[in-house]
């Protein structure tokens, strides 16, 4: 059964320059205990989609079903209750912690809002800090006393506070150094095997997603262009954009890097204010035909359980 089910989700922003179609009809399922990687370049709408699932940005149309309930129309009390099931960790752990609040208070906030008793809250904070590998005295200290990796651990502790079923990880390791990044990725994997939490893992870093995800969704200009199993996406990508993205990702192995054939994708992401008609990728696509300029392709099966949105696969 799916824990999260999106159908035809649209998010639009009104700006001075026009309406930005940040998320343009995304349908996606995430199973219980699964890690789904969401990849794409900046401006493709992946973070906006993550925020839409948290209801941090208004959803224009579409259904977001979490654990059997459509959360798109929820308000007030019902929305607060839903947010206990879905939590989020952010790229910049410093920006997401109150600098004037001790770590203990920040981590206790979810329990306070949920109306826990003071003693239970204090015990829970101790447990959470030990789970994420922070010393017990951390709760009396302030965010600025911690390094980036430790701050990300604080953010993870707070996200785990009310035992959520799904954690949306928005570029959680992009701001961290290589060695610390590996520590945080390992921590996320440990927590998953311990508590069975699911992740929607949003990242532009393909090698990190390849390491952590079970399935991968590739996003371009507000729409999904390919969704498939991790191995299928890496070994046998179907959509020309997925192929281009993988070809562009640096490989930390000089011989493999030299041996591979790479076609460098030309041009840059078009503006989401006035997306091209037809296939959103046709302006940069190496195999685009006349048809792609008018007909928008839909996701359809391409074998091994994967789907891709391209007329020519």
């Amino acid at each position, binding site marked *: 059964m799916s824990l999260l089910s999106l159908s035809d989700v649209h998010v639009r922003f009104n700006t001075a320059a026009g309406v930005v179609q940040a998320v343009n009809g995304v349908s996606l399922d995430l199973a219980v205990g699964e890690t789904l990687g969401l990849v794409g370049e900046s401006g493709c709408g992946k973070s906006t989609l993550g925020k839409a699932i948290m209801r941090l940005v208004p959803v224009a149309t579409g259904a977001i079903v979490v654990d059997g309930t459509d959360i798109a129309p929820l308000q007030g009390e019902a929305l607060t209750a839903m947010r206990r099931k879905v939590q989020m960790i952010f790229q910049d752990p410093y920006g997401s912690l109150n600098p004037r609040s001790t770590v203990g208070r920040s981590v206790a906030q979810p329990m306070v809002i949920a109306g826990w008793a003071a003693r239970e809250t204090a015990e829970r904070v101790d447990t959470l800090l030990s789970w994420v590998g922070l010393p017990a005295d951390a709760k009396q200290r302030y965010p600025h006393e911690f390094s980036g990796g430790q701050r990300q651990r604080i953010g993870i502790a707070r996200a785990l506070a009310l035992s959520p079923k799904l954690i949306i990880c928005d570029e959680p390791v992009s701001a961290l150094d290589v060695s610390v990044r*590996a*520590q945080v990725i390992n921590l996320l994997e440990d927590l998953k095997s311990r508590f069975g939490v699911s992740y929607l893992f949003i990242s532009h870093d*393909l090698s990190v997603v390849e390491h952590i995800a079970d399935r991968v969704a590739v996003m371009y200009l507000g729409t999904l262009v390919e969704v498939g199993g991790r191995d299928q996406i*890496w070994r046998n990508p179907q959509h020309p954009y997925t192929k281009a993205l993988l070809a*562009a990702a640096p490989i930390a192995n000089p011989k493999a890097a030299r041996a591979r054939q790479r076609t460098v994708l030309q041009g840059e992401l078009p503006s989401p204010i006035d997306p091209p008609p037809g296939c959103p990728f046709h302006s940069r696509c190496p195999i685009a035909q006349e048809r792609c300029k008018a007909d928008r392709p839909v996701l359809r099966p391409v074998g091994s359980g994967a789907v891709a949105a391209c007329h020519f696969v």
Partner: protein
Amino acid sequence: MQETDPLAGPRAARPAQADDAGGSRFTATLEARGPARLPLEVENLTTTLFTRRGAMKAVDGLSLKVGAGETVALVGESGCGKSLSALSIMRLLPDPPARVVGGAVKLNGRDIVPVSEETMLDIRGREIGMIFQDPMSSLNPVATVEKQIAEVLTTHTDLGRGQARARAHELLELVGMPDAGRRLDAYPHQLSGGMCQRVVIAMAIACSPSVLIADEPTTALDVTVQAQVLALLKRLQADGGMAMLFITHDLGVVAETADRVVVMYAGRKVEEASVDALFETPLHPYTVGLIGATPVPGAERAERLADIPGMVPPLNTLPHGCAFAPRCKRAMPRCLSEKPELTEPAPGRLVACFATGRY
């Protein structure tokens, strides 16, 4: 000869590239100048930060050489001193608090550490170019693209206003700017990050410098744009035979671009090797850790990444012995009391470690 010369090794390993016209022409010039006049030779460079909490060595006795047409990657995590090394070489350190207190930076044989700021103004942009991480903040927001490129040209050459505009147009085409003619009159905010970085690159190579220093030039860019910029830098380097010092924390980018790699930790060089040797048999435990912590796409899925416990120590609390010892799995009692010096366990390889120095 090639075996013992660390500069010849990586070139020789790639006959296809070394044999092209640009490469051989360049080798010829190099020989004519004699081996002593490498484009960039850094010797025992020491940069100290003078702060209220005392003096801290941010760069501690760094030596490196970059040959013509060669790319040397300077690798390490934040705080290891790689950017301060680049700023020291360019003489762009924020002073106070940072100052070069020892060593030499030889540009085509001339030591530029003691020269006056006036002379440096002439050297920067003409003999040595630099590309920074954030292209937006390296450009003047209220000047057009043409004006910024032309300024480099009119400062360092005899070109007139009209000639400079024509040359700026040529340079934009050379760096692959789409619709180059129209972009001449654009302001930086009208361009994307990738296009801004192309403008910065055009300015850096405008006077065909012999040395190019690139400090995380693609870190702020998307992967597809990163691939475009890396391909561009490789092409410009092959055409002009520039020596390139490439500073990055990303081992994937290192594997794609470098001929030789210098790994830094807490201000010191801990390992140096050709790119193939470094990835095949890393010697220093820190290098081993960095490579283990980087996932490689397509590799068999490892259950866990090999992380390095702890983090880079702040400069004011550096341990007495080897700076990496507190995080090192192979640390011995000696590592805590004594700093390991660089040793040469194999030709062209350097490592500063008591545990791996003895091969």
